[in-house]
């Protein structure tokens, strides 16, 4: 009996240790489903907007970031490299609730460090972030031409994560977004 109890405990603890890296990672229930409709003002011209409907039929990465966000700077070079590869367009969402001149700060960061985004929109009241299940910055969604979220990265994209989780899910001969990437 003591041996049985011991083995039982070993199993329980082993499962616990195996899953310990999942702790603190929210598994988004939106993955595998159509992205909730979103429409946000463009950073450089708030009178214009961009939304999920405009991007139907195209692959895109929706990257939540902010000039205030330190981890986003760590991710920045990876996104620049990804943009150079031009396998998929990256839409940046400049996200913050209550910094007065975030627009200026965001534009400043992009002009100094480079702009990896094909378009940048702003989410100032954070409602869209909640609707998309965003918990922190950076977070990124990979959306296919049907508008389905096929992957969510709940943190910094490294070069390895970009290859393993994003590129592997894209169609092999996906061309530049300008050419209308993905199937119809």
């Amino acid at each position: 009996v003591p041996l049985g109890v011991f083995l039982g405990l070993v199993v329980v603890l082993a499962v616990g240790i195996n899953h310990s890296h999942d702790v603190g990672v929210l598994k988004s229930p939106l993955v595998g489903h159509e992205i909730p409709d979103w429409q946000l003002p463009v950073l450089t011209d708030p009178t214009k907007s961009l939304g999920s409907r405009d991007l139907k039929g195209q692959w895109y990465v929706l990257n939540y970031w902010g000039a205030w966000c330190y981890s986003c700077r760590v991710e920045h070079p990876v996104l620049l490299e990804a943009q150079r590869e031009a396998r998929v367009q990256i839409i940046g969402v400049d996200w913050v609730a209550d910094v007065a001149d975030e627009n200026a700060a965001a534009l400043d960061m992009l002009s100094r460090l480079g702009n990896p985004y094909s378009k940048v929109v702003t989410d100032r009241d954070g409602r869209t972030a909640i609707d998309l299940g965003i918990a922190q910055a950076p977070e990124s969604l990979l959306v296919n031409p049907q508008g389905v979220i096929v992957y969510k990265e709940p943190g910094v994209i490294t070069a390895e994560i970009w290859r393993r989780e994003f590129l592997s899910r894209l169609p092999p001969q996906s061309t530049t977004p300008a050419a209308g990437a993905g199937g119809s």
Partner: protein
Amino acid sequence: VRTLTAGAILLIIALVLAAARPAWAVDPALMSDPVLQARYEVLIHELRCVQCENNSLADSDADIAADVRRQIRTMLAAGKTDQQIKGYLVSRYSEFILFRPAFSWRNAWLWALPVMLLLIGIGIAVRVIRQRAALVDNEDGDISQT
């Protein structure tokens, strides 16, 4: 002079007390309707801050927690039920956001486990007590025979 120092001390105490706001008052926002306010308070204590996961929405001063609280107030004001609000947030952030997990077959074992452990414990206790009682009876028997 003495009354003056006493007055000064009283004033300092009063100021300190006035500055000591209740610890839960991260969110000074109040809803106009006290019924909605009561439901709001319950909700923000039952829901997790999605960024700082061991805090409730009520405890957290993270921006995202403030945004989610604002969303909850908006939905309450729009006449949504508590279930609809929780359902919406669960559909976005998964059941993890609930401090009290909903009862479902998937996590039924979670609720059943304490009861099962209690039953097993009672079972073991009864067996041990019976064995000991039997032992005592035997010893008595043995003694009386010799």
